[in-house]
């Protein structure tokens, strides 16, 4: 084995990095080929590597679409089964909090896009970290509002289960189903936000260590894709949960 190995790889596999041009640190080998230190050996170049990462993330996001899709399908079936109950239940949700949170998430998508752009254009570590930090702050605001909303549901005995107060509703069975779906869907969404905050904590640390620039910013790009996906889920959750019963008590 060692003979065959020596034939293809003369010398040690990894020699100390050498400088080429003025383009920052490069990664050299004794057989003469030199490349970016972040380039894995099974890719031709940085562009191909970045494309593969982005594509891989999209494949993951497709599985996420189907993951949330199961809950959206359940929503579709039960709403078709008891439309009046869903309207009655939806009318009770606070349109103010829901709308505010929608705006907060859209704003956080903007700041995330600007964080990716800051890495793409090799802006300073401070600028990159600032955009990431603002995005994280907005994520926390969203979760805080969600906490307030959940607290109200527990207080008013709207949470499905043994303490659900059926007496206040015209269609208690359907309303309970609506709120089961509400907690599953917004809960899974909130879990994704919490995971996103964890990813962005790591991202902020790496950005602070000047890890990202125009040549290599894949982690920022991929984390951005995740964050925008979570925003898209909410873009659908907001109208489907908060807005379907607005004219229920009036007409």
């Amino acid at each position, binding site marked *: 084995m060692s003979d065959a190995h020596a034939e293809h790889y003369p010398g040690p596999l990894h020699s100390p990095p050498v400088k080429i041009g003025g383009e920052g640190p490069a990664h050299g080998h004794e057989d003469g080929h030199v490349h970016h230190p972040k380039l894995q050996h099974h890719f031709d170049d940085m562009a191909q590597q970045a494309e593969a990462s982005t594509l891989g993330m999209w494949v993951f996001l497709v599985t996420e679409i189907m993951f949330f899709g199961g809950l959206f399908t359940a929503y579709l079936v039960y709403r078709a089964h008891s439309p009046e109950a869903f309207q009655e239940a939806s009318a009770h949700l606070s349109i103010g909090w829901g709308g505010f949170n929608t705006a907060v998430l859209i704003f956080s998508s*903007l700041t995330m896009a600007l964080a990716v*752009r800051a890495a793409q254009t090799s802006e300073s570590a401070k600028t990159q970290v600032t955009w990431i930090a603002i995005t994280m702050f907005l994520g926390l605001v969203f979760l805080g509002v969600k906490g307030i909303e959940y607290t109200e549901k527990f207080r008013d005995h709207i949470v499905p289960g043994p303490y659900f107060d059926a007496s206040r509703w015209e269609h208690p069975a359907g309303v309970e189903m609506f709120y089961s779906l509400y907690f599953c869907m917004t809960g899974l969404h909130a879990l994704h936000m919490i995971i996103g905050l964890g990813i962005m904590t790591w991202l902020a640390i790496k950005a602070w260590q000047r890890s990202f620039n125009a040549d290599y910013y894949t982690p920022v790009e991929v984390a951005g894709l995740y964050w925008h996906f979570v925003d898209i889920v909410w873009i659908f959750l907001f109208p489907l949960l908060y807005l379907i019963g607005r004219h229920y008590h009036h007409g």
Partner: protein
Amino acid sequence: MSAAHVAPKSLYYTIFAALLVGTALTVGVAFIDLGAFNNVAMLTIACIKALLVILFFMHVRWGTRLTWLVVASGFFWLILMFSITMVDFSTRGWVQGTPK
């Protein structure tokens, strides 16, 4: 990777504004009783908003054909899941003797 497309900041601000307008619009429409058309309007606005995020914030607009294909396949299977489920659910009990 430095060859990747860098979108101007002004484009991102425009998309952000469009998303906020879409949100205001969907809230406004919800208070008008349009019958079944409420759902159509609501979902149309949501789909346009999602499309804006996917194309511009998620850079698919400048992505490869393979990326386009993967993204589209995700929504294709989602639509399949919705439609086949609803074809079953909405036709329950059509045949005599089958459970509703």
